[in-house]
């Protein structure tokens, strides 16, 4: 059956494919175990009963140009070799290396492709010599935002992005991801204004449509080459909100809203055929796992190299890959920073894997500790507790439009936050809580129908900032 040729009812009517959850029971939302595990070429079984480390890394302070290319390649070679050598030393069960490209590597796809090749050769060498299973997640960056207002569908930048995806997967980038930016033109300002309707418009209207466009392409490319369309995390939305909240620039309760709203945008990748592992940095993975059953990557305390986090432990509660988000290739006292972070990820993963080996009771106790150690410290943590993930996910799948899905999810998250406050289990300063009634009013004012919502929002948005037709509207 050629999936991509068929157009389903839900696609035609622009509504969410999922009407119920695959995981209905909080106890079944567990690290290392996904109802639909993903098997990779070199034998990783992500979500198949084992948590693996996903190492992320980037260049130290330097330019990328003709003159430095050799040095750039050497950095990635050193990173991959250092990490895999140490993974062998630590008896690792398997590693994912995420290669998130920087501008120049996407603009000139041959650079990105060469880096994939270099790292894939090393993966292969360690596989052949030591039996270490590892794969590369290839994450081209979304170049389209270089034009303002962005031309989401007609941009000249789509060509190099697609080229990097295709040639990169052929070179050994087996897991395909991106942190696409559809809707960001609107959400950037909405984030700063704590405008929940603006964020919802950016994600549930613009984001969803852009994801449909982009992931249709990515999935068909992946299918063509027998590669794995993995997923797309709302980094520019949910992660940005978290970082802003950590800096105390916006309320944490708002960042929690943004995370929930981003679910309806990120799930579109799965609707288009992506199978996971979903990317880490938006933390919307647990909801995607509950609804669709795919395995997910998460990041928490061991991504303190990349940003501080209120979700250090709880983020791992149902992770299948455990990531450090990003670290520069610089020297620490022990050795290179990516190698050090690989070690930390491996030990975290070992603990979870030991629980998986020991059985259900051990898993559930470890998860309970991971969850309860963070749950009431921050509303963003609260909504990631398995029972809350399930409850919010159930609210999300109820509605008949992405807009309604997002709104209902956010309202349920609000309920959960208010209940925790009422019970006295969570404490928040008045500065935070004063936003709650505003969010509730705003969310309640959102109609079920996408068209009505668009009509409601357009007068309030700066028309110079985005182009509706670039979203098929």
């Amino acid at each position, binding site marked *: 059956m050629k999936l991509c040729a068929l157009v389903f009812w839900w696609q035609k009517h622009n509504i969410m494919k999922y009407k119920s959850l695959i995981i209905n029971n909080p106890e079944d939302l567990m690290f290392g175990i996904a109802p639909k595990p993903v098997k990779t070429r070199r034998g990783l079984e992500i979500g198949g009963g084992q948590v693996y480390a996903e190492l992320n890394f980037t260049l130290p302070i330097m*330019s990328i140009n003709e003159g430095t290319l050799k040095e750039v390649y050497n950095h990635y070679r050193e990173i991959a070799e250092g990490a895999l050598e140490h993974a062998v030393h630590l008896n690792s069960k398997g590693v994912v290396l995420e290669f998130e490209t920087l501008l120049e590597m996407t603009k000139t796809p041959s650079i990105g492709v060469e880096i994939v090749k270099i790292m894939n050769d090393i993966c292969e060498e360690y596989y052949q010599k030591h039996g270490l299973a590892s794969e590369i997640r290839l994450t081209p960056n979304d170049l389209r935002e270089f034009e303002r207002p962005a031309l989401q569908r007609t941009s000249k930048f789509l060509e190099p992005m697609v080229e990097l995806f295709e040639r990169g997967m052929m070179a050994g980038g087996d897991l395909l991801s991106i942190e696409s930016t559809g809707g960001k033109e609107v959400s950037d300002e909405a984030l700063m204004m704590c405008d929940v309707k603006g964020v919802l418009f950016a994600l549930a209207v613009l984001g969803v449509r852009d994801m449909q466009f982009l992931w249709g392409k990515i999935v068909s490319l992946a299918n063509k080459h027998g590669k794995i369309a993995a997923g797309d995390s709302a980094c520019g939305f949910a992660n940005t909100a978290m970082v802003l909240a950590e800096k105390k620039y916006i309320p944490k309760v708002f960042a929690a809203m943004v995370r929930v709203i981003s679910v309806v945008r990120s799930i579109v990748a799965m609707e288009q055929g992506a199978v996971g592992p979903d990317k880490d940095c938006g933390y919307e993975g647990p909801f995607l796992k509950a609804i669709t059953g795919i395995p997910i990557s998460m990041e928490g305390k061991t991504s303190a190299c990349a940003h501080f986090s209120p979700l250090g432990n709880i983020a791992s509660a149902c992770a299948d890959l455990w990531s450090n988000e990003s670290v520069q290739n610089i020297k620490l006292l022990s050795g290179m920073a990516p190698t050090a972070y690989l070690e930390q990820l491996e030990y975290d993963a070992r603990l979870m894997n030991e629980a998986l080996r020991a059985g259900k009771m051990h898993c559930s106790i470890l998860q309970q500790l991971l969850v309860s150690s963070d749950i009431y410290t921050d509303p963003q943590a609260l909504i990631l507790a398995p029972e809350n993930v399930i409850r919010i996910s159930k609210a999300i799948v109820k509605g008949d439009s992405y807009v309604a899905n997002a709104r209902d999810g956010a309202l349920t998250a609000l309920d959960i936050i208010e209940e925790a406050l009422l019970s006295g289990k969570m404490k928040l300063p008045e500065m935070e809580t004063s936003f709650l009634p505003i969010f509730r009013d705003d969310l309640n004012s959102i109609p079920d129908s996408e068209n009505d919502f668009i009509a409601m929002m357009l007068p309030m948005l700066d028309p110079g900032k985005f182009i509706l037709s670039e979203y098929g509207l």
Partner: protein
Amino acid sequence: MNELIEKLLEAVEFGKVDLKSPYPPQLRGQDGSFELTQKAIETGINPQLILESALIPAMERVGKKFSENKIFVPQMLMSAKAMGASMVQLKPFFASGSIKTKGTFIIGTVKGDLHDIGKNLVAMMVEGGGWSIIDLGVDVNADRFVEALENNPGAVIGLSALLTTTMVNMGEIVTRIKAQNADTKVLIGGAPVNDEFCRKIGADFYAPDPQKAVEYLNKLAS
């Protein structure tokens, strides 16, 4: 202090733009900074005084509250909007030269870099501090900075970068700017940047946050 000035200060501090605006709840139904400025001008208050005794002190208070984590960005943005409404009224006086800002601040995110949340905050706070802002946006190369400087002699330049691979572009831009006019002050910022890097590339000041940038600029202006 004059009562109108006091009210205007309050309107800007709490982000009351105009009569109709529902925010903040406690000032609902009252005049906003738009109306208050109009009235102040009508009653013959010196426009320079409006700027210096109401708008700038209000924004200073806002900046202080923000840096003490007592308010969030949206509150600060509302104040900036209120100040903007006031500036609309004051525009003719700027045009005629009867009032002056502290100077012009040209800001942009450097070539290859699209991160602008931080830069926008800095621009807003500096504007609140009484400076004219020219925001060149993101992905800005040396040519564009030099050009903007040519058109605004004496301006101070602010560079932002968030990537380890774009912060190096600051070096070239600083060199070009200093080549054009060695006296031009350049301040830089962005998460991966620090003091040491600032010295290395020959920029004049590194500010980890908008408050520090405003303090530095105000010292320059005084």
